[in-house]
């Protein structure tokens, strides 16, 4: 597989959210606005790239049977790093994302890529894979966040375009997340088939 | 408050157009074709050959098993061939085809009209006689009657129920029989009581036949142990299980026979045939057939020889109307649509119903709107919408679990469905598949 397609597959063809249906919790929980979605996506992408990098570096030093715990420790470390960095430098975003930052640990995408890709491939393609998947994830969260923000708050990236009015609040609330994601997946499904 | 069965049921328009028409003897046909399988169970085996001459009432095919029935010639004449002919099921079946010559009856048959009340035969002899005479359930099920009379070991019949319900719309053959042959069928009932060794018989009649109820109630005073029970009108009260439930309040257990609750059910037509067989030595070769339909000129009740082509009956009732869409053997709820009117009348033909083109097709089928009407009308407490769906999905395991085999195919669900869904069609399909699965499991 060449590096370019390895990189781009995460956006549409193997998009972790829209196609592989992974990492649903943060996808739904943090996408009340475009910026939150993007923030969460990038945080996850960072963890993904770093853990892929490290795991592909040390993969031969780790016995098979303790593979998973070792991976989890590595991933959890990077999650904590992201958690601390965000708390220190982007406190507003940190507060918005809240619980979902530590929960990156259990995001199936991260462990999934570590297990399926980084533990079998070289460093460079692992990083590319992590980057592609991570950005694909961020892209999905951005789309979903933007959709919910436009419909729910009548704004995009915080810029309000319907004056003082509220949008359809449904979309910023929990049910709106399920609904918007459902229709986006349906649209992507029909686009992929067409 | 009149009795009826407790669960489900529908009230299709009754349309008993021929109720006031007395039974007429239909003219002899030129030719009859008598299928060797007119009953449930193994086909009879022919004992005549081509060119044999036969008399009315002569045995022409012999019962070939425990569940099987003798077949007698309904006419006198010459056997011209034994061939496959399309019968009411739409399939080709072996039939004995006889060219009619005169009307020469078998000598032993007592053709006098006198009522003979005394029963000379013993229980075993009656059962034997019924078997020899080829009597089957004339309500339409055509189950060989002698089998029903032979109570399995360890069980005991407590009550005989005579089915005079005639819950199918349009049909009036039983109704007319009760009015015109009341005494005969009551004697027939006593014969059946003797055969079963029971001292109680109840004739169940729906309340839409007050004249029959009145007539038989009057007559039963002379017959010990027989009484008439007027029932609330509700389809499918003529179903064996429903009738037992209505009259005795007992429910035949799922998968069981009526005898499990001590009941045996026979149709009024059967009771009459038993009278004729036992008292008059006359085997079953003719029956009452209603020819009816909204477009029929002269809705009638005919006494018809078995094997007569349906076309003859229609002709006698005023001919086939122009706009005919469907010809049905039996009633509108459970009868079979005929592919051709050359089909012969058989022991199970209770009526010929002609339906105009406009009413002969189901409307457009829509998705189930889950109105639950099929569930509420199912007399067996099943969920037809679900049985259809799981059959459609080929989930036969679930279909069996949901008791699809209990379905009596009364058609109430398909009748009531506002979405015109072919519920019963799918359930039948499911029953076939589930039946096969059950059989392979046993093996």
């Amino acid at each position, binding site marked *: 597989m060449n590096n370019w397609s390895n990189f781009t597959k995460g956006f549409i063809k193997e998009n972790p959210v829209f196609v592989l249906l992974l990492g649903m919790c943060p996808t739904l929980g943090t996408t009340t606005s475009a910026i939150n979605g993007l923030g969460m996506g990038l945080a996850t992408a960072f963890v993904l790239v770093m853990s892929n990098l490290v795991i592909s570096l040390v993969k031969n030093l780790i016995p098979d049977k303790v593979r998973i715990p070792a991976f989890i420790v590595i991933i959890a470390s990077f999650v904590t*790093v992201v958690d601390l960095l965000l708390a220190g*430098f982007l406190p507003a975003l940190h507060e918005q994302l809240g619980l979902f930052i530590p929960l990156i640990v259990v995001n199936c995408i991260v462990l999934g890529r570590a297990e399926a890709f980084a533990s079998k491939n070289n460093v460079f393609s692992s990083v590319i894979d992590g980057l592609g998947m991570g950005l694909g994830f961020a892209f999905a969260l951005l789309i979903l966040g933007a959709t919910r923000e436009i419909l729910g708050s009548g704004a995009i990236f915080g810029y309000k375009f319907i004056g003082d009015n509220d949008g359809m609040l449904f979309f910023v609330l929990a049910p709106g997340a399920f609904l918007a994601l459902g229709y986006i997946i349906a649209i992507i499904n029909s686009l992929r088939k067409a | 408050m009149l009795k009826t069965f407790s669960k489900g049921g529908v009230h299709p328009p009754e349309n008993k157009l021929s109720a006031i028409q007395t039974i007429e003897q239909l003219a002899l046909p030129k030719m009859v074709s008598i299928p060797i399988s007119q009953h449930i169970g193994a086909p009879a085996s022919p004992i005549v050959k081509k060119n044999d001459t036969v008399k009315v009432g002569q045995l022409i095919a012999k019962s070939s098993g425990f569940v099987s029935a003798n077949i007698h010639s309904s006419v006198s004449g010459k056997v011209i061939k034994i061939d496959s002919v399309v019968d009411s099921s739409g399939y080709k079946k072996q039939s004995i085809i006889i060219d009619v010559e005169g009307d020469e009856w078998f000598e032993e048959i007592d053709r006098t009209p006198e009522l003979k009340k005394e029963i000379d035969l013993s229980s075993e002899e009656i059962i034997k006689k019924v078997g020899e005479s080829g009597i089957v359930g004339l309500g339409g099920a055509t189950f060989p009657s002698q089998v029903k009379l032979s109570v399995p070991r360890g069980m005991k019949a407590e009550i005989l129920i005579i089915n005079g319900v005639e819950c199918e719309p349009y049909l009036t053959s039983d109704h007319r029989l009760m009015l015109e042959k009341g005494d005969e069928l009551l004697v027939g009932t006593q014969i059946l009581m003797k055969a079963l060794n029971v001292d109680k018989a109840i004739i169940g009649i729906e309340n839409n036949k007050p004249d029959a109820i009145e007539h038989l109630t009057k007559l039963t005073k002379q017959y010990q142990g027989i009484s008439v029970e007027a029932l609330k009108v509700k389809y499918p009260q003529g179903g064996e299980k429903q009738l037992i439930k209505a009259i005795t309040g007992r429910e035949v257990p799922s998968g069981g026979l009526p005898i499990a609750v001590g009941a045996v059910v026979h149709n009024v037509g059967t009771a009459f045939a038993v009278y004729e067989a036992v008292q008059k030595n006359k085997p079953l070769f003719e029956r009452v057939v209603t020819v009816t339909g909204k477009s029929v000129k002269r809705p009638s009740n005919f006494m018809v020889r078995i094997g007569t082509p349906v076309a003859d009956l229609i002709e006698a009732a005023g001919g086939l109307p122009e706009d005919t869409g469907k010809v049905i053997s039996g009633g509108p709820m459970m009868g079979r649509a005929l592919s051709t009117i050359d089909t012969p009348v058989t022991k199970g033909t209770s009526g010929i119903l002609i339906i105009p083109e406009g009413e002969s097709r189901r409307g457009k089928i829509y998705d189930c709107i889950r109105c639950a009407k099929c569930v509420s009308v199912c007399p067996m407490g099943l969920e037809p919408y679900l049985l259809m769906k799981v059959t459609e999905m080929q989930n036969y395991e679930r279909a069996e679990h949901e008791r699809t085999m209990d379905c009596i195919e009364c058609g109430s669900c398909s009748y009531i469905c506002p979405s015109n869904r072919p519920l019963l069609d799918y359930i039948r399909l499911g029953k076939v598949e589930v039946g096969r699965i059950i059989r392979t499991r046993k093996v």
Partner: protein
Amino acid sequence: MAKKLESTFANMVIVLTAVSLVAAVSLALVYNITKEPIAKAKLKKKLDAIANVAPAFDNNPNAEMFKLPAFEASPGLDSLEVYPAKKNGEIVGYAVKTYTMKGFSGLIELMVGFKLDGTINNYSVLAHAETPGLGTKMTTWFKNEKKPKRCINGKNPKNVNLTVSKDGGDIDAITAATISSRAFLDAVNRAYKTLEQGGKYE
């Protein structure tokens, strides 16, 4: 390519311990680097909230915070945090972290700033769980200076009845959210009365 390490017991223990150690050490490192920014960010947030509501100050109100017994306190919440705002060493006003339990979904927390005469300077909503689109409007509703019937900024509870007009007060409730509005004003009044009890007005 190097061969994979065998899954012997010793290997497994060693590797897992090593991985955990490396992780712990590097995390400790990162923690130490980010410790200060995190603390700063937290403080800044609080100061921002105070600065937002209190009259302009040049001290560190957080350092001079003191508690006063709350007016009509709810159980478990019997004192309010008061942050004095000082300019050139002189007290110019207070920011009070106040609350109410009467919100649609219980607790609402506000930071309300008062001038020395008891006039409300500004407020900000710290925490609430009100209905989106209704109660949530309190974050801006009561500070819209174009609508004097709603705005509480610049009003002094001493001479203005800080209850909703429906209850005979002077403030217009949020449309279709009277309960949240009542709760909001209850919290503001609690802050005012608490300072008054503490004898903080001139």
